[in-house]
């Protein structure tokens, strides 16, 4: 059956998002439409990372990287502690970069603060020194497919994680 109509959320709101242990994860869906001129900023951004491929039409505030990785692109998860909560309660194990496979997730932590500044999903395993390719959302900008270190969050402490069961 085809989806007949698309409803649009107009207000900022949290969605019901929980870990496997049924604990709530703080989040916020932001329906604000980006300004036309913001696309220009995104295009300049892309010029800094020529190997990255854009995957979406334009910037959006609806979801961020953690929302893509852990909430199927439905909302923003902006708190580092919430991401830690998900990793722990959903049972993610760390895998080495050489063993990272499509579907594994990648986490970028700031070396100074240890904060989870970015995350994404592996879409192509490591073939050479450039490492695996990842799909991730760059803040309010767009979704990109990129080599895992060719993004604005490098240098960072990067770890790969897999939910095994």
């Amino acid at each position: 059956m085809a989806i007949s109509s698309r409803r649009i959320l107009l207000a900022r709101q949290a969605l019901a998002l929980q870990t496997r242990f049924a604990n709530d994860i703080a989040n916020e869906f932001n329906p604000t439409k980006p300004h036309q001129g913001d696309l220009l900023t995104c295009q300049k951004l892309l010029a800094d990372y020529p190997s990255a491929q854009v995957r979406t039409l334009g910037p959006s505030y609806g979801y961020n990287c953690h929302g893509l990785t852990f909430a199927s692109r439905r909302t923003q998860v902006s708190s580092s502690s919430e991401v830690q909560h998900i990793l722990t309660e959903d049972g993610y194990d760390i895998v080495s970069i050489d063993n990272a496979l499509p579907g594994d997730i990648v986490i970028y932590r700031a070396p100074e603060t240890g904060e989870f500044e970015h995350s994404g999903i592996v879409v192509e395993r490591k073939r050479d020194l450039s490492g695996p390719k990842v799909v991730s959302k760059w803040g309010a900008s767009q979704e990109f497919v990129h080599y895992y270190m060719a993004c604005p969050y490098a240098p960072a402490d990067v770890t790969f994680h897999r939910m095994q069961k």
Partner: protein
Amino acid sequence: MKVAKKLNLEAADRAFATANTPLFLVRKLRADNATASIAASNSSREIFQELRAVLSTKATDFRTSVMPYVLLVALSLKSDNELLNKTADLPAPNHSWFKYCSEYLIESFQSNSIHHVMPKSKVTKRPTKRSNRTNAIVINRV
């Protein structure tokens, strides 16, 4: 205020466009020359007044969205604890990360401040037993 118009705020725009978390934005703005330049060429009161003004307007694009954070970080560079503390009470209905960033910067400022706490003491010199060449400084707490 002498702020923003002549400054290159492209890096700040990009920081906002790519920020998934508030602390990433703060970290990037702390390293941005434009933020440092605002802090260097304006008084903390001027920055605070500008901050209050931009918070009351609705953000329409990345530039207007990032400006409150640029000014907040610039203010945090001024070492004016009194005005920085006041930012936590500023209403920011259109800037969802503002309060969190403000509280983070206030806390960082307090933990990085140098507090001169000296115990009452009397400093004397006496020869050490191990060496005759140097005198040890002995602090006797009183």
